[in-house]
């Protein structure tokens, strides 16, 4: 199945792109994707183990099971003011 990944702010810098498509196995959870991205290396190796994520524009726990066509957004903490 294919899912769409969205990166904001710092995570966009780590990913190098604002969004990308990812082919993954059915039954994958958000946590699976985080693990895959961290393992794949590059900038996303610095992605925290438990980032805040939203699935289809709704904040979701990492245990959320993804479905084909889902949008997984990574929400970076930002402190600036």
């Amino acid at each position, binding site marked *: 199945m294919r899912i769409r990944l969205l990166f904001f*702010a710092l995570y966009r810098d780590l990913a190098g792109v604002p969004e990308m498509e990812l082919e993954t196995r059915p039954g994958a959870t958000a946590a699976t994707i985080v693990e895959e991205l961290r393992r794949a290396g590059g900038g996303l190796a610095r992605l925290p183990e438990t980032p805040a994520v939203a699935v289809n524009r709704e904040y979701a726990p990492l245990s959320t099971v993804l479905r084909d066509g889902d949008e997984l957004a990574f929400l970076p903490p930002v402190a*600036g*003011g």
Partner: protein
Amino acid sequence: MGVTIRIPTPLRACTAGHAEVSVEGGSVGEALAALVAEHPRIRRHLFGEDGRLRGFVNVYVNEEDVRAREGVNTPLADGDTLVIVPSIAGGSGAPAVGSASAQAEGVPAQTGSGPELSRLELARYARHLALEEVGIEGQRRLKAARVLVVGAGGLGSPVALYLAAAGVGTIGLVDFDEVDATNLQRQILYGVSDVGRPKTEAAAARLADLNPHVRVVRHDGRLTRESALDVVAGYDVVVDGTDNFPTRYLVNDACVLLGKPYVYGSILRFEGQVSVFWGARGPCYRCLFREPPPPGLVPSCAEGGVLGVLPGIIGTLQALEALKLILGRGETLVGRLVLFDALAFQFRELKLRKAADCPICGENPTITELIDYDFFCGVVPETPSSDPDAAFPAELTPAELKARLDRGERVQLVDVREPFEWEIASLAAYGARLIPLGELGGRLAELDPEGDVVVYCLSGARSAAACRRLRAAGFRRVANLAGGIRAWTDQIDPSLARY
């Protein structure tokens, strides 16, 4: 086909105050007809004499203008959301229609309907009084309200200015800093003549000039674990404009413990976030970000930069939410996080959920009093390694580093900032070399792993990350310069440029 129609504020007088109406309909035309059947008074606002959709009314289905599709014939699917967007003419005076009665969850009213307004105040707030959603009663609520603005910087500037202009009766300002020339690019509370003054002092003077009917309370110094509950308890709404994670968790926790709404905003480079966290009615900051990021991962505005107008945009959104909370009008951002990307010009809204296992606002909270936030966010100095061979401090103060250099010790001094920062000021005169943090992993061979290494950045966060990286790569004698080049400039060499 069940669809939801979102009604704009000016038209809610026609829908008994409802912000959303659920109807059946297989197309936009059918759904609107069902809406009109249920709420006949809305017809003339949407349709002309000829029965066609009026030119100034835009209808969006799933965020797309139906004119770009098939107009009223645009098909709808079950669960679609249809949004009616009337055009709004100008900086004031949206087309008010009848009396809107939508009432959001607001902060509890103060003493009755609030203090009386003087003739001068009635004249000053005329544009507010003309709004039925504000009116004299709302203006008195504003006058009775007490809002705490934490951090009088990029976000705090527009927040404090707009709240003062709007007539919020008591505005508390927390800041420990003095106005610096580098602030003026975005901190619109201040001018050149304020440079060097305490921010709360300069801000209080500016706000008094803007609106003498407003009382400004200065809280000089940082909000701390010891002071936060006492300070926050004296206010109805807290607006966060701080620039660091420990204070954000502190403000969130204090607000949750005291049941206060927390208007959150944060910015970096070209992007911002805004929400309203209110543990009593919805999610809190910890429901969203359970733990802080490791120090050094997220750059500060000083390190990463920020476009000057960005805090203006996010700060005014925060001021807006604070006013809505006080007035009890509209739908606040409780349970919603808005992400703004200035370069793409995109606002995205995400639904937030209250986490049942949130450590402070969840069902079984484990945090029942304020904690040590510096420790929680990992910004305390690391404890030195217990390895006896590595008898080298994990951290050096500027004076300790200076003493080592003066003694002629051979120290590999590494600057992990970005090249533009190196251009502004560096310790090149002391033999420092530039290896930006992002390049460190690939340039380890340039350093001697057996020798002493001292790493610095602007304030100590990125260099702490670099120290961890170096230790992980087998370097044993690695120290972080406490407080970074900023502390060095303050304590050792004031001739260096501060930024």
